[in-house]
């Protein structure tokens, strides 16, 4: 899949600076500092607004969707009409309602797989980077393994072989195949951070390793973690769509990927139902675009060279 490489700051990027700047900016407002900084970036602001729109649609999907997305009581294979803005499927379901509810799936997958793979990446990366020694050797090997194993074939294989087909399976498959990149970045970041004097100082202050990682290091990696999360979420959304499109998704869930799969199988091209074909893909691109735009902002933050002047 050629989702663009997630914009992640290069190892050793100025994540502490971001943190400091964020804290500085936050003074006087009740909003978190990172948000204020992101908000000031034009691209990022557009991205945040777009994402917010998607989130709203997802949250209020039942109110927005005119029909139950699975209600197949309508005439089949309709083009756009006043009652069915985007037409109906070959089974007689309302495409627009599916589109609205599909936003939920994509966001849930993005959120869950993003969190999951970020967590895996964080734990592995932190452990490898901070503990060092043979633990690092082993974990680094795993990370590199995770990086070189071709992801989509692995995803396809795993998804095809799992005994139960469900949204969680998709989420897990995506997380399992997608954590390594974040882990590598986090590892190199922590290697930079662990030599900082304040880490030594924390040891001298009698703090234990776990506390040092949690209270001294992780806060300084927030922007990295956020970027990693966004990248993972973005990959997960695309991955879910791809798997669903290949027919490896969860057929019980309405998602943009399954919609495209259904549109492809259900003869949307044949019956000329362009709306059925275009709407889910477009929604997907817009969602991914919103993530990418936000990532631009975060990237610019942590990489001073990329800051907009």
């Amino acid at each position: 899949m050629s989702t663009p490489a997630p914009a992640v700051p290069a190892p050793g990027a100025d994540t502490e600076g971001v943190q400091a700047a964020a804290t500085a900016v936050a003074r006087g407002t009740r909003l978190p500092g990172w948000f204020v900084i992101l908000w000031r970036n034009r691209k990022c602001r557009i991205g945040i607004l777009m994402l917010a729109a998607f989130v709203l649609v997802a949250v209020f999907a039942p109110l927005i969707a005119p029909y139950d997305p699975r209600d197949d009581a309508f005439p089949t294979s309709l083009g756009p009409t006043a009652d069915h803005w985007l037409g109906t499927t070959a089974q007689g379901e309302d495409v627009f309602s599916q589109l609205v509810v599909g936003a939920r799936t994509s966001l849930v997958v993005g959120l869950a797989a993003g969190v999951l793979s970020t967590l895996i990446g964080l734990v592995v990366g932190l452990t490898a980077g901070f503990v060092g020694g043979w633990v690092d050797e082993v974990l680094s090997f795993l990370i590199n393994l995770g990086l070189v194993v071709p992801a989509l074939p692995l995803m396809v294989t795993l998804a095809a072989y799992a005994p139960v087909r469900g949204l969680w399976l998709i989420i897990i498959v995506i997380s399992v195949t997608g954590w390594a990149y974040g882990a590598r970045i986090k590892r190199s970041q922590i290697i930079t951070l662990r030599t900082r004097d304040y880490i030594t100082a924390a040891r001298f202050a009698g703090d234990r390793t776990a506390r040092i990682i949690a209270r001294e290091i992780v806060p300084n990696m927030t922007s990295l973690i956020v970027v990693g999360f966004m990248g993972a979420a973005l990959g997960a959304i695309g991955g879910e769509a791809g798997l669903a499109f290949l027919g490896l998704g969860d057929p019980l869930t309405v998602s943009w990927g399954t919609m495209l799969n259904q549109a492809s199988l259900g003869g949307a091209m044949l019956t000329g139902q362009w709306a059925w074909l275009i709407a889910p893909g477009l929604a997907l691109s817009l969602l991914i675009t919103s993530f990418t735009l936000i990532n631009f902002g975060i990237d610019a933050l942590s990489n001073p060279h990329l800051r907009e002047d």
Partner: protein
Amino acid sequence: MAPVAYFVRRFLFFLGTLWAAVTLNFLIPRLQPGDPAEAIVSRLAGQSESIDPAQVQAIRVMLGTPDGNLFDQYVQYLGAVLHGDFGISYTYFPYSVTHMIGQALPWTVILVGVTQIISFVVGTLLGTWAAYRRNSRVDSVITLGSTFLGTLPFFWLALLLVYVFAITLRWFPERGGYGGGSSPGWNWLFISDAFQHSVLPAVALLITGPIGWIIGMRNNMVQSLGEDHTRLAVARGLPRRRVAITYGARIAILPNVTGFAIALGGILGGTVLVETVFNYPGMGRLLLESVSSRDYPLMQAIFLFTTIGVLVANFLADLLYGFLDPRVRKVESV
């Protein structure tokens, strides 16, 4: 010497990963529920037909059952893999897995290889241009445009291409690598036919292909143009282009080159989505088919093949990086 250590380390990693991939490959099918023979019969029958137990039995005999305990099987498997023997495909029985890969590989390598190279060249040039004209209109157009294009799910893009150019306009064939009338071989009819069939998939790959390279190149180069040595080069009165190329692009391209080497390795796996949409007879489609029809030998071989491709590419990329970037030879990366 440091470079030797670097390469030795990379090589050990290469071997370790290879072993892990082979082992994983061995284990995955064995951890699966279900019987390939049943899978084959039920696929033949279709979901709405009852399956014939006699047929299942016959196919089970045809496929044979592995001998010995898991460890013996593992040893046998390793031995066979070392000899390049991946067994006989279930779906294409009695054709060997190697034969099937041999059929699919050229399609993928040519289609994906050519588009990758074009994408890389175009992407790198555009990225360089955008960084060179940083914050100009050109930069915004390239950056934002490629961001948007890059987020388009490309299987969807492929579907639209089929819809518009093949179905509606009928400019190009809708699917496949060649038509039914030509016979594969080195004849003009076939080559032109194959070319025509490759246009839409190639376009689909080329629309989204360069984006990663554009963004990567631009960001790297903006960074390297901000470095002190670039500023010093400007101060030294070097012509702007010279600075951009030797001091900006020369350094910025390094990660891209290794990325490209890795991407080339990924070619072997084909592009599952595009090949599926266009029904292109390459490795990606073969993989998907082998997975969905439980053709373990074929699936294992493709997966192994792909992994080896990526691994070799990674290894070569590391060597290349060591060659291109003198700094790496001294300082261990990763």
